[in-house]
C-alpha cells in the first residue's frame, strides 16, 4: 500500500513540471518502473487515479515501461541480465555484484497542451 505515497510524489512531480512548462492540460505521463522495485503498477495506477482527482492531472494516461534487472560482477566486470533473481555472475560465479538497473521509479516525460496556438 506504499503505492499511495508513491502516487502522491508522482502527482507532485507532474504538477511541478506542468507549471514550469506552462501545460494547461496533461494528456500522458511516461514512467519507468524497474522489475525489482517493490511497486505493483496496477496498484500505483489505482492510487494515482484517487490522488489526481480534481487536479490538472485527472484522467491522464500513464504509460509504464518496465525495466529489467541487470547487474555487474565487480570481480570480472561482466554486465549481465539477472534471471530468476539469481545475483551470481554467470561467467565466474562471483557474488559480489553491483545492481545496474531494475529499481527504477522514474518519470520520463509528460505530454500536454500549452493552450497556445
Amino acid at each position, binding site marked *: *500500500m*506504499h503505492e499511495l*505515497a*508513491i502516487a502522491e*510524489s*508522482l502527482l*507532485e*512531480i507532474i504538477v511541478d*513540471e*506542468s507549471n514550469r*512548462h506552462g*501545460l494547461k492540460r496533461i*494528456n500522458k505521463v511516461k*514512467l519507468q518502473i524497474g522489475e*525489482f*522495485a*517493490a*511497486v505493483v503498477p496496477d496498484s500505483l495506477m489505482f492510487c494515482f487515479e484517487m490522488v489526481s482527482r480534481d487536479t490538472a492531472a485527472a484522467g491522464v494516461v500513464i504509460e509504464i515501461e518496465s525495466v529489467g534487472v541487470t547487474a555487474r560482477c565487480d570481480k570480472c566486470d561482466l554486465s549481465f541480465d539477472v534471471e530468476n*533473481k*539469481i*545475483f*551470481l555472475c554467470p561467467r565466474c560465479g562471483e*557474488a*559480489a*555484484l553491483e*545492481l545496474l538497473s531494475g*529499481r527504477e*521509479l*522514474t*518519470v*520520463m*516525460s*509528460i*505530454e*500536454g*497542451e*500549452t*493552450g*497556445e*496556438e
Partner: protein
Amino acid sequence: MEIKVPVVRNILQANERLAAENRKRFDEAGIFVVNLMSSPGAGKTSLLEKTIDELRGRIGIAVIEGDLQSSYDAERIQKKGVQAVQINTDGGCHLDGNMIQIALDSLDLSSVDLLIIENVGNLVCPAEFNLGEHEKIMILSVAEGDDKPLKYPLMFQICSVLLVNKIDLLPYTDCDVSKIRERVRQLNAKGKIFEISCRTGDGFAPWLSWIEEKVAEHGGGTAGQAGRGLRRQQSK
C-alpha cells in the same frame, strides 16, 4: 499546442533528499544508524532489548520506534534506560525520511553512538524508502519459513545483515536454515547472516561484534570517544 516535456525525475526524490539530510546529520554527530526491518512479530523489539542489555555502558544507544499504533514498543525500550521516541504512522506501512527528521528533534544525540530505527513490521514497503541510515538490517524468524527470500527478494537483496531469529524454535518448525542461507546467497552473497535467539541469547556474540565494529568505524563507542569528540567540536 501539444508538447512533450522530457523529465527524468526519480519519483522518490523528495524522500531521497530528506534521507540525505538525515545522513549528513548522523555523520556530523558520529552516529552509526541502522534501519531494522522485518515482518510483524519476527523479534525486532526483542532484539533491541537484548542488544541494549549487552552493550549498555560501552555504547550510547537511542531508538526510533515505528508502528501503526500505540507507544508500547517505545515504552519497552525506555524501560531499558535508553532514549526512545515513538512514531505512529496511523496506518502507513513504512517510515520515511520526513518522519525520521521530525523524530530526531525529540532525541538528544550528543551522547549517542548507535541509533536503531525500528521500521514498521512489513517485508515489502520499507524496502523502497531510505531513511538516511548507514546499513539496512533485517530479521527473519524461523517460524516464518525458509521460503521468504523467494517471496520478498528485494528486502533480502538490500540488507547487509540478516538475523535469523528464534533458532531455539527450530525443532518445532519445518524451517531449514541451510535453505535460507542458499536462497539469500543467490540474492545477496555479500550480506552477513547471524543465527540468533533473542530468548536464549544464543548466537549473539558475532552480531554484537559486528555492531561494535561498525560503531567504532563511525567514531563512536568507548574506543572512538576521542575521535568523536573532536569531530563534534569541528562541526560546531
